[in-house]
């Protein structure tokens, strides 16, 4: 019990340090710094990855519908937070918007999640009975259907048809993103550590045994699917904020694959892994590897071979393949970061040495 407390305290310290770092970046970094755009994106996709992990990693349901639920969240949020006097401007191709009020950020976010969750409930009724690959395909199909429907002219007064939506509330402060993402991830962690989380893991480990232990499969799968989609919806809303514009073309299955790759790189079944991976993934693809896209010349004037537009993504996808093939456990496997255990391990390292020394002395 005492060890457990120490563990919690250490992890709280880690979280506090993270928050402090974010505050410092927000206050001190020059406004042109890459930190801002990258961290906003990291917060968004960390939440998307964690919510996917809840489903794929902890419940063993291979779903590829993330883009669809994020789209629902993004659209809901964007449509609800456009200032009233801007509406006719945004929806100019359709006369005016059907919705004539503006919501504050937090309720709009919640509604974004709820709409996604509601659709998850509907689509979950038929598709959650399907096994592994078939579930993946069905959810992928669902996401594409949503994307297709949103673009339809008929829904124009609500969704603005194929035209992008903009002018909605989009905070710039990275602390806002960190707070939304952080609170959401905290809730997911609490769920995973609860008795329901154990039931999810039981289903992942062995569906038949879980059912024989009295766990209602349909109920728990649906629960996990709805919760995951709820947070996916919120991540979608965050993505809308990041981009300050929403358009259905960005919510392709390629985006779902990207989130899946983040989950895999972090470790399927590790929350802290997903967060770390989201950081590494977006920081390197959007920032650290940027130099690969620039045609660069040496001092002597010779062009460095290969460097040029698009090369960054080639290198990046090769790196991903290396991880997928050779480091299948990802960064964290199914473990979680624990500062206390880390300290303990380092301590043990020294202890062992001294014990060995002691034996020699005798």
């Amino acid at each position: 019990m005492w060890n457990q407390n120490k563990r919690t305290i250490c992890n709280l310290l880690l979280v506090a340090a993270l928050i402090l770092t974010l505050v410092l970046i927000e206050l001190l970094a020059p406004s042109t710094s890459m930190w801002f755009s990258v961290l906003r994106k990291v917060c968004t996709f960390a939440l998307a990855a964690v919510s996917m992990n809840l489903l794929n990693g902890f419940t063993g349901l291979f779903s590829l519908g993330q883009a669809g639920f994020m789209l629902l969240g993004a659209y809901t949020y964007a449509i609800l937070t456009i200032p009233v006097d801007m509406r006719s401007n945004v929806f100019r191709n359709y006369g005016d918007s059907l919705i004539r009020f503006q919501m504050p950020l937090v309720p709009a976010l919640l509604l974004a999640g709820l709409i996604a969750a509601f659709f998850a409930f509907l689509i979950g009724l038929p598709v959650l009975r399907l096994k592994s690959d078939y579930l993946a395909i069905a959810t992928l199909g669902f996401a594409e259907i949503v994307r297709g429907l949103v673009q339809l002219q008929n829904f124009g007064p609500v969704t603005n048809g194929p035209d992008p939506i903009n002018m909605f509330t989009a905070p710039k402060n990275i602390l806002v993103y960190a707070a939304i993402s952080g609170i959401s991830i905290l809730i997911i962690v609490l769920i995973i550590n609860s008795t329901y989380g154990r039931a999810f893991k039981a289903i992942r480990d062995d569906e038949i045994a879980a059912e024989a232990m009295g766990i209602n499969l349909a109920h728990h799968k649906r629960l996990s699917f709805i919760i995951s989609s709820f947070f996916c919806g919120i991540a979608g809303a965050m993505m809308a904020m990041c981009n300050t514009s929403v358009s259905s073309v960005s919510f392709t299955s390629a985006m779902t694959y990207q989130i899946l790759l983040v989950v895999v790189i972090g470790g399927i079944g590790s929350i802290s892994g997903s967060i770390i991976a989201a950081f590494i993934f977006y920081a390197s693809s959007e920032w650290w590897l940027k130099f690969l896209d620039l045609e660069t010349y040496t001092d002597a004037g010779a062009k460095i071979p290969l460097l040029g537009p698009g090369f960054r993504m080639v290198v990046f996808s090769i790196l991903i393949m290396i991880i997928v093939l050779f480091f299948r456990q990802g960064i964290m496997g199914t473990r979680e970061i624990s500062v206390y255990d880390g300290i303990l391990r380092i301590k043990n390292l020294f202890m062992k040495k001294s014990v060995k020394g002691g034996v020699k002395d005798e």
Partner: protein
Amino acid sequence: MNILSYLIRGLATGGQFALVAIGYTMVYGILKLINFAHGELFMVSGILMIYIVADFPMLPIWLAIFLMVVLTVFIGFLIEKFAYSPLRSAPRMSVMISAIGVSYLLQNLVSYVTGGLSKQFPDIPVIGESIRIFGVKDKLTVFLSPVIALVLMVILVWIINHTKFGMSMRAVSKDFETSQLMGIKINRVISITFAIGAFLAATGSILYFAKNTGINHLSGANPGLKAFIAAVVGGIGSVPGAVVGALIIGVVESLAKAFGLADFSDVISFALLIIILVVKPTGIFGEKTTEKV
């Protein structure tokens, strides 16, 4: 355009999708893997054709096509060797993720090479020419595609059911380990399966792009997804199923266009997919399997 011409166009697209769908279905039958990279291979073979024709203008077209097919088959073989065979004993999800990784890599690679721009597919003589049949005027490739798809399907089904290689393919798809114990070289069977899939994708890509001339790094995604839906609708694992599924999808989408629902055509295909999955998850020709407790 009248309904007949829409129908013929639908069958044509269906025939082209069918050639891609067979690749999905065969790989799934053997490895239980959804080869997400297959649509990208289809796109890559189109790009290869463009570069071969542009870089070696003196090459006769039939030789260029031959070269392109050989290269596509080789790439299909390489993908299997490097991305899938190391994961033979890994959970199925890892292999599927690897497939997603490969498709990501191929897209980015092509985008780098082409600079992300759309490239013009070369004119292919004979099949690119317009003719008139049943009062419908269209390119020859449109009339030819479903015929070629059906002929190749018949040949393939014959190979699977009547040759020694086909027998080993069926054995491997039923039980990996036992067939290995029976002396079947499973790696060879898998390689050849991928090679056949790549060959068909290359054939499909000529027929498909001879009609739709621009190609960029994303051109494989939609046909790939459609072909995949076709394979599932027909019953994944079944070659005739893939062809029938693809023809259905092609015709349905074309008819949707005929009735002014062009915007809806993607939605209709995916809705069809979900309905089939829910009503009969194993598709039209699929076999039912039960899990042993």
